[in-house]
């Protein structure tokens, strides 16, 4: 079995199993957690709507904070849009998803994906430098932050290298890229990257709670 056969076969299979099982385990484990009974009288009965609204509202920074968080806001958006384009709009990636779910959609030309990949890598580097140079941010960072950064960065770099024929032969580089994706999948349920799912119930719950108390979320 070649490295590529291993990557496309057992490595991806186990990574997907761990990711799917782990994400559902963590999602429902957190969702059904025991919470203290609320004894106060609710000040609003529109808590569900407030929860849904907060999921979207929290995607933008309030004007009062916008100046101080401008750097993070811009880089954050570039990073997430970049990841969206690279992961979900590159045709071989769409084919990968189609192979598992049966779903597919139109992709973008390779040069657009290449630009998005380079931009995303650049932003990730900038964010790491910021994390390591700002005293407060450095103090509140733990291993999870750095591991999550690394496993996100690795598929971008290896994918670009495979595409641009940099490094080992294409089939080896493709195998390394797929293995790096497998590593990312395995890490997702166990680290902060789980925010890709948990941000929804987390924001919704916060919005609903604040609404109940009658305060701005």
């Amino acid at each position: 079995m070649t490295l590529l056969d291993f990557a496309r076969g057992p490595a991806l299979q186990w990574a997907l199993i761990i990711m799917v099982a782990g994400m559902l385990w963590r999602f429902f484990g957190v969702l059904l957690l025991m919470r203290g009974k609320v004894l106060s009288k609710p000040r609003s009965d529109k808590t569900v709507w407030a929860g849904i609204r907060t999921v979207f509202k929290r995607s933008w920074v309030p004007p009062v904070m916008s100046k101080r968080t401008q750097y993070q806001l811009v880089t954050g958006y570039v990073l997430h849009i970049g990841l969206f384009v690279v992961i979900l709009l590159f045709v071989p990636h769409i084919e990968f998803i189609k192979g598992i779910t049966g779903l597919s959609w139109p992709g973008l030309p390779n040069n657009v994906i290449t630009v998005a990949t380079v931009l995303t890598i650049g932003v990730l580097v900038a964010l790491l430098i910021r994390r390591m140079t700002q005293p407060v941010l450095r103090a509140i960072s733990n291993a999870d932050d750095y591991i999550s950064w690394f496993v996100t960065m690795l598929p971008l770099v290896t994918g670009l290298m495979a595409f641009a024929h940099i490094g080992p032969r294409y089939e080896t580089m493709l195998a390394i890229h797929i293995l790096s994706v497998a590593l990312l999948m395995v890490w997702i349920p166990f680290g902060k990257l789980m925010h890709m799912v948990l941000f929804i119930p987390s924001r919704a719950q916060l919005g609903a709670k604040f609404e109940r108390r009658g305060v701005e979320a």
Partner: protein
Amino acid sequence: MTRDLTVGEALRQQGVSRRGFLKFCATTASMMALSPAMVPAVARALEQARRPSVIWLSFQECTGCTESLTRSHAPTIEGLIFDSISLDYHHTLQAASGDAAEKAREQAMHDNHGKYLLVVDGSIPLANPGYSTIAGISNLDMLMETAEGAAAVIAVGTCAAYGGLPQANPNPTGAVSVMDLIKDKPIINVPGCPPIPAVITGVLAHYLTFGTIPELDHLGRPKAYFGTNIHDRCYRRPFYERGEFASTFDDEGARKGWCLYKLGCKGPVTYNACATAKWNGGTSWPVESGHGCIGCSEPAFWDRGGFYQPLSQATMTSGTVLGAAAAAGLAVGVGAALMGRGKHKQAQEEQK
């Protein structure tokens, strides 16, 4: 044909013109990535080379490799060059049969000991010697006996080079390749199912010209022919870059000649000269005729996922397996949460 003739004399006897011969030399030098200045040297060497004795052994194979060579395009200069070697033993092409055929092989081995070329097509079964025999001799015994006095071994076709189709899972005959068995001779792998005729003759021409085997890659293939992958030389590559793909064999993309990646083309991980040398006298090649590359010059190409499965898809993952993983994750998550609630309740009651 007299064995003492040179290749040049043999070709002239068959009516090949000087121009035709030089054209072949220039093409061969170009395919071997040699400088144009080397063409006269190739011509001189080929002209003066004594016709080497070649013993061709066919084991677990379909004769496609021989068909490829002999029916490539009649008559090609490559075919004539092939005629100009002293092919002393070949099941399909020789007139002799039975004992006379085997005697011809033994005679050639005896007369040219240490000098003859051994060409093998087909894999060798090890599970049971009776699976494939020639004149009552097992493939393994015949290969080892014949290889002993050979100057070099050329494994023609993916079966001889890497085990090929007979070795495909579950490999019922215990098929192995030539290089799995022979360790003390130079081996040139010319894989393909079948290999390109010009590549087989090119390797022979290289041996006749330089008296050495060509530079090989990590899988024992001549780099001159197997140095770049199909994808990098494919005329449909611009469509890949533009994100234009055929999704079925009869859609608009297929009619417009767009990239066949979505239809399972293995061109990006397949090294061969198809895109440049082409087939049938340069007429076409699989991708040009509308079918993706199946990766036939790579080891274990039968067992690397479906031929029509895109390269980026996982080969083992199924919806059922992932559904089971999701159910397990859900059960454990809910179970853990309920256990937590139970403990919490118990702790509250104990406090009371």
